[in-house]
């Protein structure tokens, strides 16, 4: 039963959300919520629907049933204008970076702030350069994405998402496509961001060490449901569910 959000301080609420792809039910009557400023990590076996949650929030997919609320407002049904306003508050970093290959790095960072937020170009470029400094790529402002390593590209993608000053940052297996030696740089950067900003983070990852470091809360998924949730100390130290123990046993 979808209930009205009584807890108005929830930034994100999934209320009985179901999502199917063909005959496969990837999210099954899912309920969970995230308060502002929290860092929530979604863990679980592949195909358990974690990425779909991020894609639903970014409106890249539509739920088949249930209600998703951001700041109390429904994502569906809603007019496109409302969804656009919601999107502006949410940034997403993808597994395969998805930088714009025909633009240089700085342009990747300024395009949306100029076109969407209405910043003038100088302002946007200043913001872009500040972010490049943050991610350690000041010297790459005029490089093309193809000239960068995977790790560098992902750092640019993180900077691109932050350039929109989002309230929520969605991280979709951001290190899965990276060579092992490049993973640490990206994770360190994200730890920094988690520590120094009040941005709300929703993170799908297979890096359990990272999940333990940055999370306020860990949600364990299996077959489209949250089977267990709690602090990282609880989930990693003393998991209550048999499937969680099996999963952690397999990945740690």
């Amino acid at each position, binding site marked *: 039963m979808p209930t009205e959000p009584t807890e108005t301080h929830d930034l994100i609420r999934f209320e009985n959300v179901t999502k199917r792809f063909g005959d496969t039910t990837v999210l099954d009557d899912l309920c969970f919520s995230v308060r502002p400023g929290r860092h929530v990590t979604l863990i679980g076996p592949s195909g358990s629907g974690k990425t779909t949650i991020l894609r639903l929030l970014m409106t890249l997919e539509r739920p088949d049933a249930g209600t998703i609320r951001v700041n109390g407002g429904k994502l569906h049904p809603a007019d496109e204008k409302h969804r656009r306003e919601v*999107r502006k508050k949410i*940034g997403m970093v993808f597994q395969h970076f998805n930088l714009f290959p025909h633009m240089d790095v700085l342009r990747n960072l300024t395009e949306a702030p100029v076109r969407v937020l209405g910043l003038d170009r100088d302002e946007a470029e200043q913001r872009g350069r500040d972010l490049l400094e943050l991610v350690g790529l000041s010297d790459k402002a005029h490089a093309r994405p193809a000239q960068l390593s995977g790790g560098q590209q992902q750092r640019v993608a993180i900077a691109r*998402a932050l350039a929109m000053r989002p309230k929520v940052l969605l991280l979709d297996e951001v290190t899965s496509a990276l060579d092992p030696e490049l993973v640490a740089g990206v994770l360190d950067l994200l730890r920094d961001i988690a520590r120094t900003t009040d941005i709300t983070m929703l993170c799908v990852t297979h890096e359990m060490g990272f999940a333990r470091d940055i999370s306020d809360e860990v949600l364990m998924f299996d077959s489209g449901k949250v089977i267990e949730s709690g602090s990282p100390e609880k989930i990693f130290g003393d998991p209550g569910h048999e499937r969680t123990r099996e999963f952690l046993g397999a990945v740690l």
Partner: protein
Amino acid sequence: MNWDWSAVADFTPRFWDGLLVTLQVLVLGSLIAFTLGLVWAAGFRAGSRLVRWPVHVVTEFIRTTPLLVQLFFLFFVLPEWGVQFSALTTGTLAIGLHYSTYTAQVYRAGIDAVPAGQWEAATALSLPAHRTWLTVILPQALRRIAPALGNYVIAMLKDTPLLAGISVLEMLQQSRLESAETFQYTEPLTVVGVAFVLIAYPASLLVRTLERRLAH
């Protein structure tokens, strides 16, 4: 058979006039084909079936009927319904319209080849639809399809003599007028043929270079 250089010289003024018309048809026809093709391609991707379906039917119809038939239809039949353009305008519109249905397919392939992640990144950055098209999708699609579009311009060049069929004064029609007056066929026709080679061959080399340059 005797080659008569003076016949070539006599044909020269007409030839230049014809060349000018041919190039004019080619440039304007290409512009129409490029723009209208993009409109069709956008139609293919429209959210509503009420748009997609008619666009599909119209473009398939145009693409599968001969250009010459279309030329005759536009030139001889449309005036009966009160729509009348000059032969040159009719010819340019017809060739542009005809080729727009080919370029539409090229655009479609080019747009489909842009990875889904690019659309998703644009959505994640809240870029509005027209910005997504103009600054993210089309620049990447055009890079991929520039050589294919170039090849259609060359094909279009070689189809311009069809416009002689509705008496547009392009190169071939000029040579026919010349021959009708002088009874010399060899020289004017040869000059026109050579002119096509001299334009089309360097153009195809250009397309090939473009292809190589964009391939990496």
